[in-house]
């Protein structure tokens, strides 16, 4: 059972890693002026909800399967994701707003955030991998 949980977490984590990489690539495209802000933001906004869901699912799964340490590790990031999604002003077009992304260094902070998440997900990936192998051996 535990192995199944971690196999799922691993897959989910892979997806999140890919998503982070996609965010980074798209943002750096915008930074280098390869795409315009409008299309960049509409691309990214599409994936904000999947990211939130994906991460929340893992977090909840860890809680349910009583892996406290991993749950607590995931909790801040998941909270941040949800908070960020909820706190979008009503007039904005999503977490990424094309009219503001170039202002006040938002682009840079988005980039930084995506980088941090990538690192975090990589860390999680190896943890899940380790836990999965451990669980498989125990089985």
């Amino acid at each position: 059972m535990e192995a199944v949980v971690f196999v799922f977490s691993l897959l989910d984590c892979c997806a999140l890693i890919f998503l982070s990489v996609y965010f980074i690539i798209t943002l750096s495209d915008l930074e280098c002026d390869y795409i315009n802000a409008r299309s960049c933001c509409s691309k990214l906004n599409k994936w904000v909800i999947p990211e939130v869901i994906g991460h929340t699912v893992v977090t909840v799964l860890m809680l349910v399967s009583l892996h406290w340490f991993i749950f607590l590790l995931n909790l801040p990031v998941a909270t941040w994701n949800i908070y960020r999604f909820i706190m979008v002003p009503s007039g904005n077009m999503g977490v990424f707003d094309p009219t503001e992304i170039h202002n006040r260094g938002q682009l840079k902070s988005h980039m930084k955030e995506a980088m941090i998440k990538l690192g975090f997900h990589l860390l999680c990936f190896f943890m899940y991998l380790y836990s999965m192998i451990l669980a498989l051996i125990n089985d």
Partner: protein
Amino acid sequence: MHPSSGYRLHPQNYIAASGHYSQGPGKMTSLPPESQCGDYYSGLYPVPTHSPTPSTVSQPPAAQQLYSRGPLPPQMMGSSPGSFQGAAPSASHLHTSASQPYSFVNHCSNPAVYSANSSVASQGFPPTCGHYAMSTVSNAAYPSVSYPSLPAGDPYGQMLTSQNTPIFRPVKDNSFSGQSTPISHPSPLPPPPSQQQQQQQQQSLSGYSNPLWSAPGLQSTQDNLNRNHTASPATASNNPVHTDLLSRPVMQNAQSPKPSPVVSTVLSGTSATRTPPAANHPVRPVASATQPSELLQHKGMQYGEYVNNQASSAPTPLSSTSDDEEEEDEDEEAGVDSSSTTSSASPMPNSYDALEGGNYPDMLSSAASSPAPDPAPEPDHAATLAPAAPQPTKMSKPFGYGYPTLQPGYQNAAAPLNSGVQSSSSMYSGFQQYTQPYPGGNQLSSSLAGLSLQSSPQPESLRPVNLTQERNVLPATPVWAPVPNLNVDLRKLNCSPDSFRCTLTNIPQTQALLNKAKLPLGLLLHPFRDLTQLPVITSNTIVRCRSCRTYINPFVSFIDQRRWKCNLCYRVNDVPEEFMYNPLTRSYGEPHKRPEVQNSTVEFIASSDYMLRPPQPAVYLFVLDVSHNAVEAGYLAILCQSLLENLDKLPGDSRTRIGFMTFDSTIHFYNLQDGLSQPQMLIVSDIEDVFLPTPDSLLVNLCESKELIKDLLNALPNMFTNTRETHSALGPALQAAFKLMSPTGGRVSVFQTQLPSMGAGLLQSREDPNQRSSTKVVQHLGPATDFYKKLALDCSGQQTAVDLFLLSSQYSDLASLACMSKYSAGCIYYYPSFHCTHNPSQAEKLQKDLKRYLTRKIGFEAVMRIRCTKGLSMHTFHGNFFVRSTDLLSLANINPDAGFAVQLSIEENLTDTSLVCFQTALLYTSSKGERRIRVHTLCLPVVSSLADVYAGVDVQAAICLLANMAVDRSISSSLSDARDALVNAVVDSLSAYGSTLSNLQHSALIAPSSLKLFPLYVLALLKQKAFRTGTSTRLDDRVYAMCQMKSQPLVHLMKMIHPNLYRIDRLTDEGAVHVNDRVVPQPPLQKLSAEKLTREGAFLMDCGSIFYIWIGKSCDNNFIEDVLGYPNFASVPQKMTHLPELDTLSSERTRSFITWLRDSRPLSPILHVVKDESPAKAEFFQHLVEDRTEAAFSYYEFLIHVQKQICK
């Protein structure tokens, strides 16, 4: 005059001679010419005189007055007169430097400049020496030069005038082209005789032989004049007209064949049958090139470092002119690097002698005084700059080949700062080498070589002011922009502060230094300002840096004749072959004299490389609310009347198209297709899925369908009088407008009178009236929905701007509606409680605004790119636009009343440069279908000490930037945050300054003189409608004030933040200026406090868009009778908006003063006469920002508060 060999190589240049450098009549602005010249000067240079009239400026005594007011050190004034003989034209603008306390070198050269000029004036000489000849030539090169309001004089008088003007931009500034008379000259006033004699003595002392120089100059001048006369007709012919201009993109909205909702009705009341006008108007050549009014200025200064570089830097061989063409991304300004032949040349004789000789006296003297002789290997350089040179016989040396000589600009240039520069041989070392300009300044300048702020006595702007003790912190004259502490030649070339301002005119070297100063760093832009003159350049090759795409500008440096170094990225570029030829002077090999390098504001006619599609025609669409509410307010009559009056003045050409839509709960289109007998109204009731009934005939050609349009406009106000429809489907109407405009782009003007209540984009009322005067949280400053933002971005993508006129009596959620204009580069007008009869002043305001709105210049499908020197970066933009990429602003429309702000940060230390430059390039399609690029370049010095940073603060620019930042903060965070941030800006900057003062007591509130108005302005900001709390402010009013702060240019914004108050019941002619034969009194500014309002007086408050005249209770009856036309105070009506034209002296003075104030701005303000005791007086008193209100500090209390915060 023999053409040089290089010249002969390009015979085609002559063949195609026509107005390359031309100033189209379309570029002329509507500003009254009388004030152009002077306004420009005074705006540009803060000379503390009443100089806004050309007459004052052009008189030698006035010039003397100018510098005598400056803080001239007496010992400098008294230095020997003969030593100043080397005064060159380049130095004649030194008059201005009198107000510039930093540089001694400037001061000591002042008298020489002045006197040299006056000597010529008095003797009525033709050009008496080489440099005069030169300037004569440069003036004569422009047949259309005219000096308004100055009597015509002899042809050489103009030279004198230009030399006497406080700055040496004579030609440029005085060029009011567009007239066919070749030159009209002022007749100069002769200076006092004593000065004449003195001058003659001086001249003889120096041993210059006047006749020797005058001969070639005179001759060539006449030559020029003749040729210009003959050649000017030919100049009108050359304009790039695209033959495909007519081919518009085909309307592509194949409409959904829905059966029901299209109802065709024929408008009643319009039944005239007309013959259709002749079909397709041919595209007429847009003859904007009528006269080569491009004016040559003094020689460029870019070669100053030439000598040095030649010695130090090995020439990097670059491929010659056949560089690969670079395609730029999308609509970004593309550029071609390939050189091609000049297709035209301006009619100028090849007068090298006059031109080159013009600089001789200066060169000689500087060479003589130069301690480090020029190591240039080229023979002509050696000859020019050798210390043995100062013999007049040298003047006849033939020029016209080889490399130009050192520019006087660099010779007398003291480096703005010395630290770190002298050692580096890279950039500006040329400055140090030629620090000593004139023999007289020898000993001084040798000790002051590498002049910097530290070495000079404390400048005026650093004088510590104890704010709590100083009662009259506000000066009596309007506050001018500080002049950057550059050397005089860079200063004269620098961009006008009206167009381009930086909050810190001394850029700190590092971000750490900037952080220490606690001041905002940013630019304030007014790029599309109405300019009285503007060099327009038609050239096949627009020379740009190959790596950063910077346009060539006056601050680049020419490494040698064929290469120039970009001043933003320092890349070395080739000078294209075409650029070597100067059509102005018809000389070859003088790229530094091209107008691009002589003017920091230029406009290029762009080639097809800068187009993604053929230039669009001017397209105007009016979307009008005709619900019951709108009809009740009655704006339709005013709008239609204005449109009828201005239909012919709408900017555009024969392709101009116009369309109308009205909406209530349905959307009405008007078919105005030429050939119909009457306008046809098409009603679309399906607002869920809007479509265009007849896409081709809704936007019609203005010329072809003019009669139909007039019929419609006449019928429109009465068409909906009995409507019972109260709903407003704004969103669907906008969607329809977007569909209608998307094939072409253009301008959509939306008139809305209530909250949109149907269809997409409907809004709910969010304002709680009880919260209006809340001191705590002000909510709903941001938009409620992203519908309008998305729509605006869609529009922006299709080059369509949406302008919003909101005429509402109740809450209409401007915060949401404004988004449609904010992100599509439109503009927002708001008329609270508008009613055509109940509120006549608002109606009048609408009328005047519409007149301006309809007739002002407009640019379509524009993009603006802001570049700055490597090391600086822009991080936040303010204004109405969409930021498409990091430095590219997408502007569907640009109008002359739009201002922008940019925040900067310093990413890399600027230690290896002494100057930074900023360049904005605005690429737009003019209403005539020309693609044009307007380029502004600003150059500022870099400083390394905190004191210098404070010395260069432009407090007005800083306040405007802070206002923009505070608006952002209040929307993204909260209003109280923004208010705290504003107060903290004062506290931080003053405490940071206080910590730099070691000797002063820290208990007092000390500010540098440059910042002394900072607390006052911040207090004024806090009391603005946008940021005030505690006073009842309607949400829409607040949001509108915020919108204005974001989008207004600095000059208008400053009036809004801190109005000007004048006492007008005792106007005298003392200090009056003369404008157009009218005497305009100049009353001193009063501080905005009720203590200044005496009951016996009458006061005028200039708030930018509104004038208030406050009449005291016991105001002199003479004034009331003479000016207002009523016998006494009691009989003055409550609502008075006009001053009668009475034939009394005081009435005349008052009116001429008000007219003068009005003329200085595009929007004609409404006048309100406010009686003391009348209910309207609250509106007047809310502008008295220094006074205490129930919810806000007085100025003194604010200072105490700031002081407490600092001491904490």
